[in-house]
């Protein structure tokens, strides 16, 4: 039977918030709350009134890995940051720059890369490739110090034919495109090693492109298929 007396409702709401309403009675009350806006309001009354109690607890910063776990669980596509560099706000400040990029060579698709300068020996780059629906398609993560480029395919990567691959190109300030990698698909992650020249060119030109090529990559060493994504790095 649902509570139908205002005093009884108040008593139950109070004990719900204070915590002494327990077990089946608590579960039952939660079901009633779903049906009764009056009951919900009574609970909110107590939550508001007793909030000063909550403010009396000393604040304690939680360990950083709590946030990392929250992020990982909610956004499995998020790029993992090294422990020493982690900071949720600065990371999202960087990612926010996705939105500043303008349309690129192909009207439909965009690539936005973010360059996050830190200490020289720890210079890192974070890139997010988005499709027309603004869904992240690939994550590109580089470490200048380690000369590494990590490419992570996300679920939004469009399928290509069995006889095709996406190929990533570095577009130098002058000269021909330099093939960097065949882009992974199907949730895979690929880590490649960059040469000194490639790192230097990447920083200098800040331009990348992805073309659709025959399986295994361009047979000529130069793009042969349509360029489906293109961008410039954005410097923070």
């Amino acid at each position, binding site marked *: 039977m649902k509570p139908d007396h205002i005093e009884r409702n108040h008593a139950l709401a109070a004990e719900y918030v204070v915590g002494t309403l327990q077990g089946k009675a608590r579960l039952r009350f939660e079901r009633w709350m779903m049906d009764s806006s009056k009951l919900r309001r009574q609970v909110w009354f107590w939550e*508001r009134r007793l909030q000063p109690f*909550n403010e009396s607890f000393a604040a304690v910063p939680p360990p950083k890995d709590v946030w990392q776990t929250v992020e990982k669980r909610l956004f499995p596509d998020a790029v993992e940051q090294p422990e020493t560099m982690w900071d949720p706000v600065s*990371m999202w400040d960087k990612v926010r720059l996705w939105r500043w990029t303008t349309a690129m060579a192909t009207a439909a698709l965009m690539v936005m890369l973010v360059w996050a300068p830190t200490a020289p020996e720890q210079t890192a780059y974070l890139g997010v490739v988005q499709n027309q629906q603004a869904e992240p398609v690939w994550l590109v993560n580089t470490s200048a110090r380690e000369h590494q480029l990590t490419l992570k395919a996300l679920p939004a990567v469009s399928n290509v034919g069995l006889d095709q691959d996406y190929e990533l190109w570095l577009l130098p300030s002058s000269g021909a495109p330099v093939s960097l990698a065949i882009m992974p698909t199907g949730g895979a992650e690929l880590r490649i090693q960059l040469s000194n020249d490639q790192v230097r060119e990447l920083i200098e030109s800040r331009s990348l492109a992805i073309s659709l090529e025959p399986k295994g990559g361009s047979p000529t060493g130069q793009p042969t298929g349509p360029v489906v994504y293109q961008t410039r790095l954005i410097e923070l």
Partner: protein
Amino acid sequence: MPVSSDKLVVFLAKTAQGDRKAFADLYQSTSSVLYGMCLNLLRNREEAQDVLQEAYIQVWHHAGEYHVDRGTPMTWIMSIGRYRCLDALRRRRHDSTYDEVEHDYADDSMGPMTEAASMKDSQRLSACLQELNTEYRSSIEMAYFRGFSHQELATATGQPLGTTKSRVRRGLDLLRRCLGS
């Protein structure tokens, strides 16, 4: 540094729209307070961290349900965390000794409730608490700050279960009449 409620409302509104940056801001602005509460209630770091995770996952999924009747965003977030702490307590029945707890609160020293009541914006709560007799007040206090059940309260105070339930109910009733005026 505490972030204003207005700012938290903005973070919450953006979080409801899927803005991860706002969610990160919200976490950074509120998690220390929530974690402090969970540590106090649970007395266990690992459990407190688990609750914190679950609470913020809930915040992300339900940010759109926040509205002003829920109090400030902090009130809303703390309530989410509090109920999860209570669930965790139920699951494992904490092991702090009742004698210790009773001693902590029976001597009218500056307990969490008294500290809370002395804070700005809580004069009304403070005044109402002052009007309650010690039995009522300490029962509510132990329930709120320790997450005690009626049975645990009865054990802690050495009173029969029926008496304990009546005390809590009567104390809360008096408190509401005072607060609700």
